[in-house]
């Protein structure tokens, strides 16, 4: 089974600060890690490889230092790393990013499965995974919490919902995004770390990918960030008391007065 895992390098802290003037993340002095949700994606891919054979290729789009994220993925069992890196891709929103990653995946050749984390801990959009599957025109199953059955032709998956889960059968190739319930990522081995240190990371630039210049980077990004701010804490709610019919009446009155 040839599996591709898309990962993102993110700042370690959960309390990312935002530059109020440029509306961008302030990354200085913050350690970079693999997006925690992507760790589950890598682990699941490695487990599937251990069951079915094949290989796990990791792709990330980012600056040159994202090289270390690819090596970390190799240290826990991935086979090869691809760094999609070019100034032409800078400023990409989720649309341009998923277009670019889909382009890189096409370049890598045939695959059976793509796995992504459910979302990145910095942007929290959960759009890039589904975007890639749309660009590649393959089925997507998001929020996967369990692989029930897998063959080289299809997969039966448990997909997490807000309450409960649903079981979905999908043909392959397909794209999954996974949640943390799916597995427990392993600790790297010393042999893995040594292999990762010496691994060759392939850099893919716009020259190799030859993507539509109108769809990449800042100019290919329809998203306009107008303002980024920390929302004010929610104000305390209003408690209604009394017998149930009485409360219901109060509630209806309140809603009516709000509407008016």
């Amino acid at each position, binding site marked *: 089974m040839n599996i591709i895992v898309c990962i993102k390098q993110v700042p370690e802290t959960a309390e990312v600060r935002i530059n109020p003037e440029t509306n961008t993340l302030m990354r200085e002095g913050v350690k970079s890690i693999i997006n925690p949700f992507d760790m589950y994606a890598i682990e699941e891919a490695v487990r599937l490889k251990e069951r079915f054979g094949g290989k796990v290729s990791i792709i990330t789009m980012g600056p040159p230092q994202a090289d270390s994220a690819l090596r970390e993925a190799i240290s826990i069992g991935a086979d090869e790393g691809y760094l999609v890196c070019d100034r032409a891709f800078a400023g990409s929103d989720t649309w341009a990013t998923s277009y670019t990653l889909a382009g890189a995946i096409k370049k890598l050749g045939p695959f059976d499965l793509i796995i992504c984390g459910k979302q990145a801990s910095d942007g929290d959009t959960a759009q890039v995974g589904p975007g890639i599957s749309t660009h590649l025109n393959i089925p997507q199953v998001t929020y996967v919490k369990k692989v029930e059955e897998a063959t080289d032709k299809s997969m039966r998956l448990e997909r997490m919902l807000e309450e409960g889960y649903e079981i979905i059968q999908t043909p392959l190739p397909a794209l999954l995004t996974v949640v943390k319930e799916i597995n427990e990522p*392993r*600790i*790297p*081995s*010393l042999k893995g*770390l040594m292999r990762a*240190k010496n691994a060759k990371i392939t850099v893919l630039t716009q020259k190799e990918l030859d993507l539509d210049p109108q769809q990449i980077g800042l100019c290919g990004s329809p998203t306009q960030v107008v303002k980024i701010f920390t929302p004010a804490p929610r104000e305390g709610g209003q408690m209604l008391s009394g017998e149930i019919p009485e409360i219901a009446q109060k509630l209806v009155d309140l809603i009516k007065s709000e509407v008016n």
Partner: protein
Amino acid sequence: MDYLLTEEQKMIKDLAHKIAEEKIRPVAAKYDISEEYPWEVLKVMAESDMFGLFIPEEYGGFATSVFNLCLATEEFSRACGGIAVCYAASALGTFPIVLFGTDEQKKKYLPALASGKKVAAFAITEPEAGSDASGIKTVAKKVGDHYILNGLKHFITNGGDAETYVVVAMTDKSKGARGASAFIVEKGAPGFTFGKKEDKFGIRASSTRELIFTDCKIPAENLLAKEGMGFIVTMRTFDMSRPGVAAQALGIAQGALELAVKYVRERVQFGKPISSFQGIQWMLADMATEVEAARGLVYSTARMVDAGVKDVAKESAMAKMYASDVAMKVTVDALQLFGGYGYMKDYPIEKYVRDAKITQIYEGTNQVQRGIIALKLIKEMAK
């Protein structure tokens, strides 16, 4: 402090740190209470190749490096001295085979120990043979192509859980210390059973148990080195393993120091964090300096061993003795800094005091270490 670690050493230290923080610290209190053997953690260590650090490459390890063993043991001990000793005691049980095993013995036993599929233990102590190892009563008698072992070992770390044991027994009592021999005994050997499991003050995640040999029959090829070399095997093994015990003590001290610094920054009394008081600051300064001094001694000794320096008995004894005395003092001071909370089991610091104590006792009490050091000094001057 920059310890001038190579890239590979940093990799080992970082990996051990990750295992300690993610897999050991969260379960340290649980195993301290339950006294169960922490197989789940040892499995992670094994999968991360940590058991290969003290075994030569040709037998499935990464090269025998006491320094690397110390780096890993120190990091594990920062989080739990008990779980760390399960690991370090396997190194102790493995060293005699690494040092004195024939190629066949190494091929037979080391790969499974390097991969962590099996854990090892070293057995010399008996009820009447603690510091005075010449008091060993366990005997091994050669009968045809076998040895028959009879006797009792006690206080054996990893006892019952280890698969591979190196056992010291007398083959010729009339020769005293020169009549002892070392044997490899596998769990399941006929006549080899386990007795009392000890209920300990500290390092409770590790198992400490009696080994009972009742006409225990082992193949003659399980003899390590030659008959009569049991004490040489033991001394050489301890020279290699003592830096590991020192590293365990060092890790316990470092872990307690870190908890104490964190606590005094948070604890507010008289309207400010207690870290702002000079009395507290001076304690921290002394603790940190002593830990660094211990680290210097441990790392230097481990590097000497790896460089192949022939006689490391004095330095090994110094490292073990000093680091364990520092661990005892620093953990007690750390508990003091926690005040009344430190005395309560709800806080992690009292465990460090309990775990530290054993490092002054096992693998030669600190009084025995001082004896070794002094004797060396006097002999050196007499040359």
